[in-house]
């Protein structure tokens, strides 16, 4: 399983210097202009961040998850790993 961080707001320099998440050592992708960030189907009332997009082995979007959806995300990851 691959985890990528995607930053749709900040410059590379800001993301590198100031964002704590970047220091996890995970790849940080810069979604300049929020092009991908704005493309996902999302329920209303999402806090802007964080949110997660889960993509399966065939490249299909399998779920979009907000701040409070951790259990659903974990379940879906388990289901995908079992496929």
């Amino acid at each position, binding site marked *: 399983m691959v985890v990528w961080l995607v930053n749709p707001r900040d410059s*590379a320099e800001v993301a590198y210097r100031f964002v704590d998440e970047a220091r996890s050592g995970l790849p940080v992708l810069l979604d300049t202009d929020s092009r991908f960030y704005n493309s996902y189907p999302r329920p*209303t009332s999402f806090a*802007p961040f964080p949110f997660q997009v889960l993509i399966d082995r065939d490249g299909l*979007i399998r779920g979009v*998850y907000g701040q409070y959806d951790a259990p659903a995300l974990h379940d879906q*990851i388990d289901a995908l790993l079992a496929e």
Partner: protein
Amino acid sequence: MRRSAPAAQTIGPARAAGLLALLLGVGCAASPKNSGSVGADDDGGPANADGSGDSDGGAGDGADGAADGVDGAGDGTDGAGDGTDGAGDGADGGDPGEGLTIGDPISPIWASKISALPGGSSFFEGTDAAMLDAEHALVVGQGGWLVTTLSGPAVVVDADERRGIRVASRGGLAAIATRDRDLILLDVADPGAPRRLRSVSLPTQGEDIAVDADRILVGLRDEGARLISAEGDTLGTIPVADAFAVALQGDRALVTDAAALTLWDIADPSAPIELTRVELSAPGRDLSWGEGHVAVGLGGAGLAVFAIEGEALRHQGDLQPPGAIFSVAIDGLDLWAAGWEAVSLIQLGAGPPVLRGVQRTAESAMGLAAIDGRAMIADWFSLTSLQSNPGLGAPTLVLPDGLVWSPDPELRAPQAMTARNLGPFPLHLSTDAPSSGWRLTGLDSGGDTAAGALRLAPGDDAVLTASPPSGASIPDGGVGWRSDDPDRASGRLSFSVGRGGLGEPHPEMVLNGFQWPDPSGVVYDLADQRGKIVLLVYFALF
């Protein structure tokens, strides 16, 4: 002046008819938007392509409440005596709402708009505000800082000095922390002509600032909380690991870290003495101290209120207003809280804090400041000042969104949620016979209530269950509900298609990036990951 109908324990026929009209409007607007998100908004506002139209959705309700709530504003006893009056008005007002941004009229049951103006620069992104006097506010943002009037609107000064994140001011001295690890000190004795005093380099970004009596306290994470003179000299450091939010009054300082709020005696700044420590349920992100109360913004965990009694902090209660609370401001017994999607006004007193009203915002309400019953709010793209109406309040419904529907019947499960009344008056919640196929149960004594109603006393909550429809096609809308919260008179719980569901290929994605600690650029292509499960985690600097 039109008077409201007397409060009723359940929704009466007249009110129900008005509600039905609203719901019909919802039904018309709640057509599926796209394959991913088919939930409708609070009152069936235009469906956004990306499904993120919650603030639009609140428009009709908010404007209805505003039109009717003028009654309450003009005659304090009307709204104050019985909060459910406002509810009936909000539902049957019938004035079509226009798109609501934070700059539009809001429900004056609890507050009224004074002014709104665009952020000073095209790329302002306001993040915090401080009052300079009763009429002037200093607002900082990514695009600079500016001084504006509350009753204007008028931007008095617009400084193109980028990347401000936090600001504080008292007694003619203002301090701005920037993302570039600077602390900018301003002489604001004349708010119309602020004068830059100096810039002080900080070892790390200042997360929060407090100013009192020519001294500045800055939360510097692992560097502790640093006390700095107006001349820019370091007077001392409060040794708190992961110091974040700070407050300062005379020889007393408050600091939050990841787990606690601590009160310090800084009479000798070179040797601060810890007086008391209370645990917090989440890291404190902002502090406000006034009138013997301390409010702590806890991000997604809401906020906590303490009474400060000598050298002790007495916990008065927690509250979870909508959104994530990153900015709080105490003004007398009013507590204002900014939480991304909403601005909340909370009543402080001897007992637990009580939510009086919620105003949903167009963008992200990042920071605010308040004085004399008025607040200046730094929204992402606009500035708004609000006026609190003393003594008035409204029942306030908190009902989560985010139901999930799966195309796979095996994965469809009833989903529990909690409805809460955070306002000072009783709240009624009801649902119609569900045309979409969703069923909402728990609205009365355990039965399956197609048209049931639930009464929530102030502070009460109730567990509801939403059961997905059994058909094979994506439901036509979510779960419809009505309440007598004037800001949320009716709506539908939206849902997303999840758990085995969305099924569309992710767009081709080739992005530049990096991998800590190497700052050099790397190109990432999602196509290279075919055959692996990929989790994209979207994040940003707050």
